[in-house]
């Protein structure tokens, strides 16, 4: 028996797929499925989080609807994956936010931006707020550096702790020993698979977005988004080192590493999310889980807002607009951090964990089973 109807449907599909196995060359989901005969809720959560929703198996399947066997693996695994985020959310009281995630993220962002704006207005007289600040420490005249570190360090730490608890429940549920998370070969292999988005390529032809014709655009836009995000993160990290190790205060010149990293990353984080949004817009509704549309779009928009406000701040930092833009940017980033455990961000974490387990399982796999001819 399964906890939800979606899990029961995922079980039915995996039983069908396990009897067919034509898709085993497309990605990691099917080989992982083949290692099993029956599918517990934990197994299904694992398989669902391995799925990159490339869509290839839907268009390749002779049993996809309108066939009476009604096999739609991408949509059902997307739904299963979505439910797993709620199921493993910590604290569990927050599980409900995944049901109306678009609304939740929008409210959290609005509140956070409003709080920063209100704070800036309350603490500073208009002359400071709308003044032109240049030279070292310009930003900190509006928000002291220590305060910034406290707020953002705290939010980030909270996100890490909350996501950590989620992963712990996931890992227990799928029945994998903790030792696997310390297996360097499995970790290395998962890093390679994640870094290349190895399984977002329909087995080599490219993922399928609007129809059965393979394209690679989602992979490209996801790379731009992901690496853009990493570069922005690297920008913040190097700025922190500049501050504490070199005693150099922001804002930095355009040729300084934090600005270079942030600019390049920010541009990636503008183009990538726009491309992903456009791809989602055009996507064949058949392979989508409509219940997670809000969550997916909210996360993409959050990333877009982060990069957009960041780049705007960079462009106008020496003008009177800086104060308001800083409040906006910080508000968005704070909301991004604090909602990380309760939105689409977690897909990367669970996916990575699933890839680690898959790497270990795959290596352990010995002989191939005998099976069906035509």
């Amino acid at each position: 028996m399964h906890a939800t109807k979606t899990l029961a449907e995922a079980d039915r599909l995996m039983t069908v797929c396990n009897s067919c196995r034509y898709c085993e060359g497309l990605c990691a989901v099917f080989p992982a499925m083949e290692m099993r005969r029956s599918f517990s809720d934990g197994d299904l959560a694992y398989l669902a989080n391995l799925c990159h929703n490339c869509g290839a198996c839907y268009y390749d399947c002779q049993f996809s609807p309108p066939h009476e066997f009604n096999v739609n693996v991408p949509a059902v695994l997307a739904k299963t994956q979505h439910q797993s985020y709620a199921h493993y959310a910590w604290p569990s009281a927050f599980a409900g936010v995944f049901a109306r995630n678009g609304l939740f993220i929008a409210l959290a962002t609005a509140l956070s931006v409003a709080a920063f704006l209100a704070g800036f207005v309350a603490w500073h007289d208009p002359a400071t707020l709308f003044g032109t600040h240049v030279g070292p420490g310009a930003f900190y005249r509006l928000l002291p550096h220590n305060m910034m570190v406290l707020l953002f360090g705290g939010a980030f730490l909270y996100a890490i702790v909350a996501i950590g608890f989620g992963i712990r429940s996931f890992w227990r549920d799928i029945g994998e020993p903790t030792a696997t998370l310390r297996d360097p070969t499995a970790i290395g292999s998962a890093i390679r698979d994640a870094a290349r988005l190895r399984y977002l390529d329909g087995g080599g032809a490219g993922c399928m977005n609007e129809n059965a014709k393979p394209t690679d655009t989602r992979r490209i836009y996801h790379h731009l988004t992901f690496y853009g995000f990493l570069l922005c993160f690297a920008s913040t990290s190097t700025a922190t080192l500049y501050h504490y190790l070199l005693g150099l205060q922001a804002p930095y010149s355009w040729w300084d590493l934090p600005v270079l990293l942030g600019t390049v990353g920010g541009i990636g984080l503008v183009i990538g999310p726009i491309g992903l949004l456009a791809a989602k817009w055009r996507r064949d509704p058949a392979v989508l889980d409509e219940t997670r549309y809000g969550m997916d779009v909210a996360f993409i928009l959050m990333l877009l807002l982060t990069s957009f406000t960041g780049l705007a701040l960079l462009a106008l930092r020496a003008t009177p607009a800086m104060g308001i833009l800083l409040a906006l940017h910080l508000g968005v980033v704070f909301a991004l951090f604090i909602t990380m455990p309760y939105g689409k961000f977690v897909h990367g974490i669970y996916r990575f964990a699933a890839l680690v387990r898959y790497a270990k399982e795959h290596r352990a796999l010995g002989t191939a089973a005998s099976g069906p001819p035509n």
Partner: protein
Amino acid sequence: MIDLSRRYDVLVIGGGNAALCAAISARREGASVLVLEAASEFWRGGNTRHTRNMRCAHDSATASLTGPYTEDEFFEDLLRVTGGVTDEELARFMIRESKDVLGWIEAQGVRWQPSLGGTLSLGRTNSFFLGGGRAMLNALYRTAERLGVEVRYLSEVVDLEIENGMFLSATVGREVPVRVTARALVAAAGGFESNIAWLRQYWGAAADNFLIRGTPNNRGTILKILLEHGAQKVGDPTQCHAVAIDARAPKYDGGIITRLDCVPFGIVVNRNAQRFYDEGEDIWPKRYAIWGRLVAAQPDQIAYVIFDASSLRLFMPSLFPPIEALTIPELATKLGLDAEALRRTVETFNAAVQPGTFNHKILDDCRTAELDPPKSHWARRIETAPFYAYPVRPGITFTYLGTRVNREARIIMSDGRPAKNMFAAGEIMAGNVLGRGYAAGIGMTIGSVFGRVAGREAARNARN
């Protein structure tokens, strides 16, 4: 919009592997090509949707094939499965061409994958389509459309106008018939396995109990018209690729997932709870294709594979779970069999099992003694509860009755003369090389090789 009033160089009837290979190769020869597919876009491609691999000869290992498979070895395999019922010249021609087809198919956008799990040790001989037959088909359609082949769905051809071995026109659609003309015809519309009434002519009432593993569209309409217009018949009408599949499968289109690979692990009994054939005669990849006919010969065309808990996980899972019971009589009751008869059959079998070392990967020494029919390998006592059963029926994949063709895939008329402008490829002419029996993946070889040849020759024919 597709202009049906225009006279095409080549008309292809059908929409599967053979049809698309013909369409692509005719188009690459410069011909204008129209494909008429009876099914809708989703259901296009007939039985190709359910395929997974094709058997092509090759001289060395490749990225997706584990070793060489020579022309001679391929031919020997064909001789073995058909018992020699094949046209040697045509078969050798097909096998020679299959070498080149391996690369040609890839050039049409089809991707290969190494044989992984789920296959019957075919990694050396058979090339597997990445994503299966429908993925292969989608690639062929994309290529055909890119090249300018016109494809019309829901366009069943209901009649052909043929005069003295010369194709003139085809009638499309039943309600509002439209006449389509072309300079040459490629018939690639499949066998007649979905036409139960036609099967009944040869099998009698037994045909009503057959399950059809693939498309319901292969009613043999085109085959019948061609034969009526003087195309020479080839093949035994009762011969087909038939395997034993789960009796609970849908009447049509259940595909691969209703297949059962458990026969060598148990015993198979008929409606009277009696065994009727050696379940352990040879390794399963060499025997799976005979069980459809064996079951077809049993009363009511039904049989039951009986095994116990020790074998449950030794074979590939399938769609339906086995029927389970704690005792053999209870199992018999659940299956609607005579409990006492099944108990006796199992007891007699168990008593005949000789000591041996069980190994399902080789022809082991677990056999019965003084039992008729014997079980030559993998014979183990059925004694560990729970006991399991799968009901099985004949699952027909495709029929072998067809039109005779020559090396140009040109249809031969009953007077022995080649047709002027008619070609055939795929199941509709499979009987030329496949008189009986089956070797995994050979249906696709027939389709691709003769499809490619038929398209090329039809295009040349149209030019002259």
